[in-house]
């Protein structure tokens, strides 16, 4: 029995130690990345105004959009970009009004890049010079891969950002993403993440921000929130690897294929938050790669089991030590959780940390108390 407890405890300590090391390393990388972002933004980014020879970006949005959502996406604060909206216009309400509003007209579409194209009906460009950045692709296919291939086909610039209709890139986000990609002279790609903060537990989001799963990101629903990946590719890489393929995880699949060309697998991740579907996302930098969910559950269950064993084991004469040790364990775990939450919420939310942190901190402090109270039944303390 003692050996079992010892092994479980050592496994728990080992896991916590690994998490701690990764958190510390991640925090150091975060601080460096935040500082680098300040240098870039203070200097005005990697593009200069009125200079067309900088790095143009084709921002691809897949999915239905309203007129106001489209308008807000045309206001990206990057000098040279084009917005490629790919959607099935028959399913989009008010598509005719949108086409008329932006003076769009259908152009001849001749595939020339050798990408697998499915379901492309028409491509629209605007007659009005002020809307020259907007390209609308009417694509019958609902697959993300097909939509992304269509966008790569018609894209004018050499960098592609693939987003979904729930995400709007925040000010300076393109600048940071482009800088991160161009610093990589050996190719590869960078990934940003936008997380919806509308519903669910901030704790879950905060923990996820700190312990984010690395590589092959996909849509995750965590505590009611959705973590949506944003990818920035070089268009040549997309064409060179034959375009996107598959369904669902298409973009991540291509990202994994492109990642073979990079020397290291460590990519800077930009974590942002979408306050609502139509509100600007803020991008921060979170280069942490996290742990799979199974060890997390295992460690929490192991801790719970340890509590149970400690309070129920008949250790003669160690009653006071039992209470003290359990209390210390509880305090330490609550302290860790509180600080993790505070730190992660601070990382994930710049302006709103004050009141939210207080609410979350109280919730963290008191909820374990009620859970442990159920475990630590009064009768266990009667000798």
């Amino acid at each position, binding site marked *: 029995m003692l050996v079992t407890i010892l092994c479980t*405890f050592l496994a728990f*300590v080992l896991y916590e130690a690994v998490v*701690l090391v990764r958190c510390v390393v991640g925090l150091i990388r975060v601080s460096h990345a935040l500082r680098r972002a300040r*240098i870039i933004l203070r200097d*005005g980014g*990697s593009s200069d105004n009125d200079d067309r020879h900088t790095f143009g970006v084709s921002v691809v949005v897949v999915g239905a959009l309203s007129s106001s959502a489209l308008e807000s996406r045309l206001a990206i604060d990057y000098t040279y970009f084009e917005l490629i909206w790919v959607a099935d216009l028959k399913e989009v309400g008010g598509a005719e009004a949108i086409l008329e509003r932006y003076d769009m007209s259908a152009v001849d579409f001749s595939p*020339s890049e050798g990408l697998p194209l499915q379901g492309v009906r028409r491509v629209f460009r605007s007659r009005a010079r002020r809307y020259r950045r907007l390209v609308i692709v009417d694509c019958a296919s609902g697959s993300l891969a097909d939509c992304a291939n269509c966008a790569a086909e018609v894209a004018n610039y050499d960098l592609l950002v693939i987003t979904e209709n729930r995400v709007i890139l925040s000010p300076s986000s393109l600048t940071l993403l482009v800088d991160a990609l161009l610093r990589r002279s050996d190719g590869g790609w960078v990934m940003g993440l936008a997380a919806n903060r509308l519903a669910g537990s901030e704790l879950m989001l905060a923990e996820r921000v700190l312990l984010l799963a690395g590589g092959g990101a996909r849509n995750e629903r965590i505590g009611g929130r959705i973590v949506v990946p944003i990818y920035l590719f070089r268009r040549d890489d997309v064409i060179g690897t034959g375009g996107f393929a598959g369904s669902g995880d298409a973009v991540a699949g291509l990202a994994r294929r492109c990642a073979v060309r990079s020397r290291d697998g460590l990519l800077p991740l930009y974590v942002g938050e979408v306050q609502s579907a139509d509100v600007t996302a803020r991008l921060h930098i979170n280069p942490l790669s996290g742990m799979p969910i199974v060890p997390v559950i295992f460690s929490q269950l192991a801790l719970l089991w340890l509590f149970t064993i400690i309070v129920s084991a008949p250790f003669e004469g160690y009653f006071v030590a039992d209470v003290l040790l359990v209390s210390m364990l509880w305090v330490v775990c609550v302290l*860790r959780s509180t600080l993790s939450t505070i730190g992660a919420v*601070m*990382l994930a939310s710049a302006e709103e940390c004050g009141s939210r942190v207080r609410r979350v901190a109280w919730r963290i402090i008191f909820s374990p108390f009620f859970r442990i109270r159920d475990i630590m039944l009064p009768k266990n303390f009667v000798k």
Partner: protein
Amino acid sequence: MNFYAISLPILIVLHLIEGVALVWLLVLRYKLGREDNAPLRDAMSRLYRYAVDGVLPAPPRTTRRRWLMAEALFSLTRHLSLLSVDERRQLGHRCSLIYHLLKDAEHSDGVAQSEALQLLSVIPLDDKSVERLARTVPAEPMGQLYRMLILIVYSPDRVTEIIDSDGLHLSGYLVPRLVARLEECRVVLPVRSLLATGALLPSLVALRVVARYELGDYWEEVFEALQSPHREVRMAAIKTLAVLGVTIDRRVVEATAAMSVAERREVLRIFLREGYSAMALQPLSDAEASIGSPLAEYAVCRTLSRKRTLVKTL
């Protein structure tokens, strides 16, 4: 030995270390996210009063206030050009900005060093400071950029030598930023002598200048750059020729003949983006057709996919 005596302290120490690390993150996040910071605004207002009324601000007493003053000086210089060279020099000495930023640049590395050099780039330095800076070689590209900028501004007649210095591997993507900063500092770049070096970075800088200001007088030198052994220089020369609107002749076709399919596609896209029609790109298309390349009809397809009125952007 008691089981708890062994394992519990380890667990507690680990958690406390994690807690310390996270508290450090809170402090760091507070420091780095202070866009709406009262001390920063105070530093800005002091500098503004100095520029308008000539009231020299008192030297900052803490490291943080000194750093804020350096940030404020950088912002005001870059975006408003309020202070003259002499005023900035006087401020740099009185508030010990030069001394401390130079010390940070010498004793730190990575991004911290780059940030110190960035803030130092708007303060005129004296000879001794420049000598110390010349001995500091940052590893970060941004740090190299600002170091180069400071050295060039200090001695503009040695610009070719500085840009062509050994050991500097400034990434090509930072060249536009370097040229833009040098333009702000009113440094005239000798395009011909930079191109004559044949080295990577000077050639990229020179081609960037030619493209940015559309200097048609240098098109012969740009054609010669097509023969450069560096791929980046060749592609930059192609972009520059496209900007200059030159007629595509056999020199361009010969230069692209040795390129890979992906590079030739990029060349076609560069010309198309600059407004070349399919007819203007006929020499390249014919060269592609002669080797049976799939890019033979690329220019025609891309042109058909666009409205004529959207071909050229200013």
